[in-house]
């Protein structure tokens, strides 16, 4: 769908204008949870992200909104995709971007997370993007640094920028989020993507269903304001969006589900199951996909129904919006 690129000679100034017009100050110093945003704030953020989408489709993609700012990517867990997305977003906004992978560098030898935070804070990053395997790690770090912390995934807790980019993808495909039915399917138990999405989709007025085997469903998930389904066909019946989650390979070998093929039979998305969804339903996946485990390639690669490539594109725009609005807030507070 990115095939219809805009003309290359487009005047960059014209694209910057809508960005500046929609610029706003992020409501908090840090972005740790999708629940940090209320409905008008989330809408403002999506509007700004929309402007960045248009801008990103030009040939000249550099801005100076973050000129002089340092963006530090601090990934305790490897993630090529999210890390590059933040890196590109930061660079396009004119920030100096530094990537730290504490697992492979010497910075965390025997150091606690707090020590690392204090050390890095002394280097004065303005924006600190953090991914860590423990739930609550981003929140802990945010208590010790002077810049803004962006949670890029903390354990099984939250991944709020993923929720923003997913909401942006949905809104662009349907023109709205409110009133839609979104079925989130798969390993909900271990998924930070699911938790952030439930929160933001509710804020934006969508109704959410969670679909998966009982072993991969959090205890009392029905109290999250969602409906819980263990039968996938019933769970996605009439849904406007089917959002698949990644199943970690180590969770398949008999621990949570008996086998890959059994999982695919009952919870993998193929045409047959998708036929139960609404006629113009869209399919999403946060990536990376396990083809043939949670999703059939036939579905994943069909541009008519799959938003998966859009999600990657929206990821950069959504993160630009988050970074720009956080920096705007820092500026307002004289930082």
């Amino acid at each position: 769908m990115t095939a219809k690129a805009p003309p290359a000679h487009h005047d960059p100034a014209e694209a910057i204008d809508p960005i500046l017009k929609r610029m706003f100050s992020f409501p908090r110093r840090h972005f740790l949870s999708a629940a940090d945003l209320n409905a008008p704030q989330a809408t403002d953020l999506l509007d700004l992200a929309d402007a960045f989408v248009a801008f990103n489709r030009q040939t000249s993609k550099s801005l100076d909104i973050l000129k002089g700012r340092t963006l530090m990517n601090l990934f305790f867990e490897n993630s090529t995709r999210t890390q590059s997305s933040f890196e590109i977003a930061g660079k396009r906004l004119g920030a100096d971007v530094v990537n730290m992978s504490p697992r492979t560098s010497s910075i965390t030898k025997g150091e606690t997370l707090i020590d690392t935070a204090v050390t890095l804070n002394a280097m004065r990053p303005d924006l600190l993007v953090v991914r860590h395997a423990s739930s609550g790690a981003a929140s802990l770090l945010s208590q010790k640094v002077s810049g803004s912390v962006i949670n890029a995934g903390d354990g099984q807790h939250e991944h709020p920028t993923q929720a923003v980019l997913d909401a942006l993808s949905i809104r662009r495909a349907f023109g709205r989020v409110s009133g839609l039915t979104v079925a989130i399917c798969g390993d909900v138990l271990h998924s930070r993507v699911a938790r952030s999405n439930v929160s933001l989709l509710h804020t934006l007025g969508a109704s959410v269903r969670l679909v998966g085997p009982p072993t991969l469903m959090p205890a009392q998930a029905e109290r999250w304001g969602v409906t819980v389904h263990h039968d996938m066909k019933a769970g996605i019946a009439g849904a406007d969006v089917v959002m698949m989650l990644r199943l970690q390979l180590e969770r398949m070998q008999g621990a949570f589900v008996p086998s890959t093929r059994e999982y695919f039979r009952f919870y993998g998305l193929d045409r047959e199951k998708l036929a139960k969804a609404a006629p113009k339903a869209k399919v999403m996946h946060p990536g990376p996909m396990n083809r043939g485990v949670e999703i059939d390639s036939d579905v994943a690669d069909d541009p008519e129904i799959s938003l998966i490539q859009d999600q990657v594109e929206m990821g950069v725009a959504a993160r630009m919006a988050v970074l720009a609005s956080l920096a705007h807030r820092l500026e307002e507070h004289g930082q």
Partner: protein
Amino acid sequence: MNTPQPLALINARLVDPESGYDGPGGVIVSEGVISDVAKGREFGKLSKNVRVVDCGGAMLAPGLIDLRVKTGEPGAETKETLASAAKAAAAGGVTSFVVQPDTDPAVDDPSVVDFILRRSRDIDAARILCAGAATKGLRGEQMAEIGLMREAGCVYVTDADRPIVDSKVMQRILTYARGFDTLLAHRPMDPWLAKGGAATGGEFAGRMGLPSISPMAERIMLERDIALLEATGGRLLVDQITSAGALETLARAKSKGLRIHASVSINHLSFNELDIGDYRTFAKVTPPLRGEDDRQALIEALADGLIDIVVSAHAPAPAEDKRLPYDEAAPGAVGLETLLPALLSLYHDERVPLIDLIRAVTLAPAALIGLRSGRIAPGAPADLVLCDLDAPVIINADKLLSKSKNSPFDGRRLQGHVLMTIVDGRVVHRAEG
């Protein structure tokens, strides 16, 4: 050592769980024992060398006996030493406490018991007693020298936080310990259900994305322990019961007349899982904090006597072990200094009568391990606490005397201020001002 001057503590609210007395009175202490007790009357003319303390209506009770305390000695003295724990105990009105065997080296040998007791002899602030390991190295495999450790002076055996998973080993220990009439304290927790968990399974842990443990882990192993106890005889202390489900199991065992007792920690009486809030690791304890329904069930079980004793579960952890992401942080909370005021909340809230609360931290633990203290009677050891029940206090973790300051009570407003603590007839703590 000089014999301290005899003391007359008069004009007190005397609370003695042994006689069930809660009323005005006083106590005379000389040569380390209680020499006279006045209940609802005044002492006659006192001899001149007696120092008189007017208690001004404050509660005078037996000093607290805490059966579950960890220090870092030997092996991790930066966390806490026997001496620093004793100071904290004195400030909290705890006059005797039992240290756990999970030190480095472990207390799984009579020589280590001897080491602890020798070190304790030089410490005046509190009486320090010692629990021995039930299995060598607390590994749950080979029985420790229970008889020799008893002879060396350990008061009960336990593998502390580690459940004895192998049922055969558990069966043998219950059987063997019977020969020495030794109490086994055991923490029931199914290791497979509990593996990797940091919070209680349920809505809260699910939302927070915390790896969780089903409270069923406790009940399942308790059911096993009770079956083994039934078959073997022996005496079992269920260490830190936490869940409503396990309480039902306990009640059944007690109604059968088994020699089974249970403790609850002050943390599980005072907090529920929501106190974890935004990943507050100071509220990370083991077993993890439960839901409010469980907490209410624990309070009821304490009130009706199903739960025998309350422990501080004092577990010092320095900031560097606590200021970590939640699942990596060390569990445990210090509690010696906050045990009494926190417990008194249940009295102020009219949940449990004062005398029953005091029994659970004095006479009841004394009876479990065969101490003569825990009561106010002529001839009993002069271990006493004087406490202003109504005085408001705000807990300030930085001001705690423990070497580690990991208190979940930090900032809490409680009522109950320890004015004076007496051990062996000597004043070991006196409130400032």
